């Protein structure tokens, strides 16, 4: 008969309360946001100011403090979709390979004859040798520059694809190496952009990879996409400068052509360096974390030929002297030159752990964008427009909500009231889930919620209509209610699963706001089925047990 086990009741009520608890912070949006920001700042900097403490205490720490993220269309900000020109890296790799290759081949000039580079498309290195019959020997030398590539799928492939014909050798990056290179290029670009954007210190920027070669950048609170573009376009400036001295005084007197720069990770340490760098980051081709001969963490780096020449000349003349690695006017490291570095590659070792080595490598690589970024899409939304949208959405939701409740109560009386309570719980649950998973609410997302308000009662309507029908045949109201729920079940499930399918497809294929809409729609479907099947039912049964009506009016 009509009953729900006690533990089930507790579970249903528990889920509702949990959802509502998670939704609640959204009612105090500004306070909670200030609290969250303050907590994050205190954690990051370790500094507590009275303002921060006040903001932090504006919301009790033991309460849930997750908020529904507001999308750019609601908060205002800038959105950029950039495409990384990964091909440029292939070209750069080939161009930097050529001098090394020429040197190696020149050593064998006696057998293979004169070597020259002939025009070829970007990313392809084509060379011709004087003695076609010695092609095999030349290829062998070229092959020496190829390294094995290890990927998940392409293990055992080498980095260069070499093609020999007549007296010509065509060299390009192999597909496996291209894939690895692309990945690294995108990672580097992401890292650089992240560092760039973080510098402005705005809240929660979204910087993520999209597809194979795209980067999506969303920064709330920034004035315009053009501003954001200018910011990202600025390349991080990395230089290697001779060190004149070290001190603790930022205003130390310095000679002509010298500057005082702070150490990046040591408070109160300042370096006096020559302003003219020995080598700049533009001449760096790569940096990777590794270990030195003592097994200590270090960073390997490599210069291009010009950089290598300059670096070699400087290091051989200054053994035993420190030199500064300067990034954006901060000294990130100042190792002592132990020996002349003429190979174009070097190692930075010192007191660092693996994590620091990794970070330094990233920083070194992050110096300049590895490839040009072209912008495919840019959107700017002013904060006022976003606020207008929120206000409009709020009013529309409230009006829609009240209208639906009126319609339900007029149509189904007490049962309509139950459904309305369930609808209110449903709204709470949607916001609770959105806050819990940290989803982003967009303008179409608000539309999704309003649509849910309308559709959420559908499962209830199906049940109520069914109860009405069953009342005609069933013996007694309890039986009618029970039958109503039972019989309406398959329609509810089929109807909602099909909608869920659409929402899932919207989520997978949609981008940006459409995705936001899909998320709210999905959550709305799940919570509305839950509230209709459990909450309304619980209310109905609880009422039934108390009132024990002979007759029900649906």
């Amino acid at each position, binding site marked *: 008969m009509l009953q729900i086990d006690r533990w089930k009741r507790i579970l249903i009520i528990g889920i509702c309360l949990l959802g509502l608890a998670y939704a609640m912070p959204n009612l105090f949006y500004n306070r909670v946001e200030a609290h969250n920001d303050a907590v994050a700042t205190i954690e990051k900097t370790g500094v507590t100011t009275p303002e921060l403490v006040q903001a932090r205490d504006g919301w009790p720490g033991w309460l849930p403090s997750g908020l529904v993220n507001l999308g750019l269309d609601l908060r205002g900000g800038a959105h950029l979709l950039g495409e990384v020109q990964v091909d440029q890296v292939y070209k750069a790799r080939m161009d930097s390979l050529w001098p090394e290759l020429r040197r190696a081949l020149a050593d064998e000039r006696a057998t293979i004859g004169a070597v020259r580079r002939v025009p070829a498309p970007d990313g392809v290195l084509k060379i011709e040798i004087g003695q076609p019959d010695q092609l095999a020997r030349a290829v062998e030398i070229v092959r020496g520059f190829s390294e094995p590539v290890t990927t998940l799928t392409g293990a055992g492939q080498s980095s260069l694809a070499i093609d020999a014909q007549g007296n010509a050798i065509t060299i390009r990056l192999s597909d496996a190496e291209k894939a690895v290179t692309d990945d690294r290029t995108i990672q580097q670009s992401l890292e650089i952009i992240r560092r760039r954007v973080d510098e402005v210190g705005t809240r929660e920027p979204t910087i993520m990879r999209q597809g194979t070669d795209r980067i999506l950048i969303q920064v709330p609170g920034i004035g315009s996409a053009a501003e954001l573009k200018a910011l990202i376009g600025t390349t991080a400036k990395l230089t290697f400068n001779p060190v004149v001295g070290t001190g603790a005084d930022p205003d130390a007197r310095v000679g002509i052509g010298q500057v005082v720069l702070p150490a990046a990770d040591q408070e109160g340490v300042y370096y006096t360096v020559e302003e003219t760098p020995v080598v700049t980051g533009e001449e760096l081709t790569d940096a990777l974390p590794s270990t030195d001969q003592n097994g200590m963490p270090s960073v390997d780096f490599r210069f291009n030929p010009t950089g290598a020449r300059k670096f070699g000349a400087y290091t051989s003349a200054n053994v035993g002297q420190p030199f500064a690695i300067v990034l954006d006017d901060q000294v990130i490291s100042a190792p002592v030159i132990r020996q002349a570095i003429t190979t174009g590659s070097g190692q930075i070792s010192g007191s660092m752990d693996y994590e620091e080595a990794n970070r330094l490598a990233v920083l070194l690589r992050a110096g300049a964008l590895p490839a040009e970024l072209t912008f495919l899409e840019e959107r700017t939304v002013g904060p006022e427009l976003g606020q207008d949208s929120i206000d409009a959405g709020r009013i529309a939701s409230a009006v829609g909500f009240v209208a639906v409740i009126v319609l339900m109560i007029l149509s189904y009386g007490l049962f309509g009231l139950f459904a309305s309570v369930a609808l209110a719980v449903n709204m709470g649950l949607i916001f609770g889930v959105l806050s819990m998973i940290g989803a982003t609410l967009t303008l179409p997302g608000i539309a999704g919620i309003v649509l849910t308000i309308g*559709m959420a009662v559908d499962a209830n309507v199906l049940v109520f209509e069914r109860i009405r029908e069953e009342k005609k045949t069933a013996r007694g109201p309890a039986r009618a209610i029970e039958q109503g729920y039972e019989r309406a079940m398959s329609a509810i499930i089929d109807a909602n699963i099909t909608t869920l399918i659409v929402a899932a497809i919207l989520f997978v294929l949609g981008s940006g706001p459409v995705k936001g809409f899909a998320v709210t729609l999905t959550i709305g479907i799940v919570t509305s089925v839950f509230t209709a099947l459990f909450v309304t039912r619980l209310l109905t049964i609880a009422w039934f047990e108390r009132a024990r009506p002979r007759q029900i009016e649906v």
Partner: protein
Amino acid sequence: MAFRLKLVPDNTNIDFFRWQVLTFGLSSVAAVLSVVALFVFGLNFGIDFKGGTTIRTESTQAVDVGEYRQALQPLDLGDVAITQVYDPTFREDQHVAQVRVSAQEGTEAVTPETISAIEAALQEVDPSITFPQIESVGPKVSGELIQTAIYAVLASLAAISVYIWLRFEWQFAVGAIVSLLHDVLITMGVFAAFQIKFDLTTIAALLTIVGYSINDTVVVFDRLRENLMKYKKRPLRDLMNLSVNETLSRTVMTSGTTLVALIALLILGGDVIRGFVFAITFGILIGTYSSVYIAKNVVLWLGVKRDWSKKDPEQDGSPFSNAEAP
């Protein structure tokens, strides 16, 4: 007895096939007209699909479209469309316009110079003007967006038909798909005929319509399936009428609550999402209609296998079942 709002009487016995020729005919005509409209007028693609730039302007002074146009003339931007936006939610001194510039020849990416030139030119005309929203989409992305949009619609149609086929029978799946295509086509036709902006959010709206319409159709199908088991001998046509009549109050009620909520959003939700909400609202109406008048007609026409014990698929209500052998 307490007062009850009854949108539909308790016991209805409407013959939904009575106007079969008319409704099916009207739907067919509407579908054909939609295709014609799509070819003749074409869809008014937003920048999502066409590429280009839209700038929303806001000013405390009244908008003079002619003046704006004149200010932008010397910039040589190609196709420029300036429209004033009206909305009941606007404040008294809020004057909004939309400037749309088509994608610039030969540039893959968006040029900030163009945007700042436009901004400067408009500020010349009206110093109080601000630009609350600027959107720029390069032609490369817009092409891909069209592609994924089409995939999304097709994928959802396919997934739904598979689900219906698994849960019901293939005739139901065909009926559902026909009615969904009908809804999507006519909604797109309306967008083409009235040149309403068609962008990424419109696709979301179309898919929502698909979801809602199928939701509605499935409820009728579900009841039909139940009645098919209950009344083994009654003709399919009668059972369909019975099923629609039985679920009619639910259909009207749910459409009613959904429409009420959407109309609130349509009026009060602001102009930014109006097109989107309009598409959904229109789709709910047509989706409700199609689940009553289109989906089941197709199923009736195809027939449903009633008795699984017989080898010979002699189907009730099938157009072939009563055909005499020559």
